């Protein structure tokens, strides 16, 4: 089910082709800045194929983190007005072709023990150089 941030989560109309990877720009689906330790990429599917977490790096504030590193980053903040970028190690996507991107992002608002805010978004995005 979509929530009110679903359309907003996948911020771009495109997948950005990078050297040997693609970049997916995402927005923080919440009202305030959060530290990376409370942000979790729950699942990413491209054309229905699940992408394992080891192939994803998260970029914020010009720094890159593996998903495993994000869990410890209580001092790296994702500000509400900034795009985060998921860099996905996936060669072989064809430029100008559209792919179905299906992302679920979990947030654990740090003043709400035990609560998870789950946002799902699916969009067809075209690979652009």
């Amino acid at each position, binding site marked *: *089910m*979509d*929530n*009110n941030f679903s359309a*907003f989560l996948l911020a771009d109309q495109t997948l950005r082709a990078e050297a040997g990877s693609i970049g997916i720009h995402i*927005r*923080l689906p919440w*009202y*305030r*800045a959060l*530290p990376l*330790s*409370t942000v979790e990429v729950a699942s990413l599917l491209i054309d229905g194929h699940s992408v394992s977490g080891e192939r994803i790096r998260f970029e914020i504030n010009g720094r890159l983190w593996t998903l495993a590193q994000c*869990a*410890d980053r*209580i001092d790296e*903040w994702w*500000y*509400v*007005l900034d795009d985060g970028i998921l860099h996905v190690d996936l060669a072989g996507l064809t430029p100008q072709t559209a792919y179905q991107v299906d992302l*679920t992002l979990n947030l*654990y608002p*740090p*003043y*709400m*023990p035990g*609560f*998870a*805010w*789950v*946002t*799902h978004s699916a969009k067809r995005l075209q690979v652009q150089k």
Partner: protein
Amino acid sequence: MTVTKPPPAAGSGLKLGVTLYSFTTEFINRRYTFEELLARVAEQNMGPGVEIVGFQSIRGFPVITEAFAERFRESMRLHRLTPTCLSINSDMVLRRGQMLSVEEAVAYHEPQIRAAAQLGFPVVRSQFAAPAEVLRRLVPLVEKLQVKIGPEIHAPLSIHSPPVLAYRDMYAKVNSPYLGFIPDFGASARNVPPSYLAFLKSQGMPEEIMALAVNIWRQPKDAQQKREEFTALAQARHVDPTIISALAVMFSILSTQEPRAWLEIMPQVIHIHGKCYDFDDRGIETAIPYEELIPVFAEGGYSGYMSTEWEGHLYSQASGFENVRRHQALCRRLLAQL
């Protein structure tokens, strides 16, 4: 404890204002900058009180540069607005699955309270995630800075929930005028907002799961228990996690304490969140009984600010400005009738 009060005086000293949280949609979609929101609030006469969420409005919060602070104070002067409350966060679960220690939590709150003093906010809103001991240890700082601090009594809590009682005990012992509470009127709801249920339905929420949640929500039980009960039942039925999350929010934003119950803590109320979701054709808030709440706070002699806090942006793309306007029109009418 029952507080005996003289019969209500005519009128009320309750003052209106707004929290910029009401304009979350406008802000995070980059349609208005922070300074543009302040200008718009002034232009639409939604003040004089202004509340902000530090971690929303200010990049790098709780670090405040002197340049930012000076610009903010200048904006307040220019627009004839008054800083009322800085909403800070008691982020006890910064590390997933692990609570901050009391010492860490005190250190986490301190710069946020200093930020309030630097920006000229007389009150900070904290949260019950932090145990009472954290605020007790912050008393010397808030007294020195002359900034009042209070956790927000927000759904699913009531004035008799165990964490609130623990704070009330501590307050009775410490007896500092800088310690208080901030009622959020979502804790005195009479209904789940119809617009919220309509949104869930439009997103394909199964009706029987929605009915299950609403029925549990209506039960006269502790609200936190109700959220847990719903989550467990839904998980047992293998309901999709996005659906559970969307409905569990209902228990976190709305609960059903009697409006008159607030009288019991009235002398400790330092600020109010005038929560609202939607309004009917007569301008009545459909979920929260303002026609009862405003007279109760007048009777209790409350004379501080109430920030209009429209939270429909959790599920709706409607205009924050339009909903704040409706809420304040309703409150002005009710205040004039006292």
